[in-house]
């Protein structure tokens, strides 16, 4: 087993990535909490999961034209929140501040948990080296 190619570290690294991505979505939503017509964005886990599965079984989308944008993990997974039409305000804004705070808390906890796991993993590697 190569140390650098550790699958657990890779997965945990993805969790860090996704968590900070979610925090950035929350930041954009909260900054625009008073912007008329702004639609709250959220992280699309289904798209993220599909992207991961496609990569695992080697069915990543092919670019048929050089002008096409690459399927990047950053732009395809941010979607408008769909179930928020009920909480739309008169100015067309759909940001729900409590929900954003809950999302932030979740992202923060996931980040803390996986960063602690990574630290432990590195500690174990170090222990086995010395």
């Amino acid at each position, binding site marked *: 087993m190569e140390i650098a190619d550790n699958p657990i570290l890779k997965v945990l690294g993805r969790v860090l990535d996704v968590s900070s991505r979610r*925090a950035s979505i929350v930041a*954009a939503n909260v900054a*625009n909490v008073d912007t*008329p017509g702004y639609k709250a964005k959220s992280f699309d886990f289904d798209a993220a999961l599909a992207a991961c599965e496609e990569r695992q079984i080697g069915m990543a989308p092919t670019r048929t034209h050089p002008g096409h944008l690459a399927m990047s993990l950053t732009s395809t997974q941010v979607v408008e929140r769909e179930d928020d039409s009920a909480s739309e305000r008169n100015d067309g804004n759909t940001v729900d*501040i409590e929900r954003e705070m809950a999302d932030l808390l979740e992202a923060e906890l996931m980040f803390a948990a996986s960063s602690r796991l990574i630290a432990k993993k*590195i500690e174990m590697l170090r222990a086995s080296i010395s």
Partner: protein
Amino acid sequence: MSIFDILDVGSSGLAAQRMRQEIISSNIANASTTRTPGGGPYVRKDVVFETANVTSKFGEVLSALTQNGLRGVQVSEILQDNRPPQRRFQPNHPDADADGYVRYPNVNIIAEMVNMVEATRSYEANLTIMNASKSMALRAIELGK
């Protein structure tokens, strides 16, 4: 979008809400101002927010221009509230018209207070997020230790 972009988005929110607070404080301070350089009573002002790019990186701007991009906020303009001024009967006031009525600004103190609380809460929410992402970044720095 990196951790610094989160801070940029957050600070754009802070700046916009602070600007709103400034306008609100100006409205409250001038709630009884009957004379202005332009003549007539003070006219209530209000801010309009719009989404804004917080980065100059091409890729980020491109993704922000598409529907799914994440964007900060900025004050796009400061509007004047064109509702008519309140008329109060004060015949002894130096600014009273021929009928004895003084035109006072169209500022509703209670509405301004509600606005102020809203702006403060939004400011705090932005700060909370900046603090949270800072602690996440600090935790990531600690990883190798």
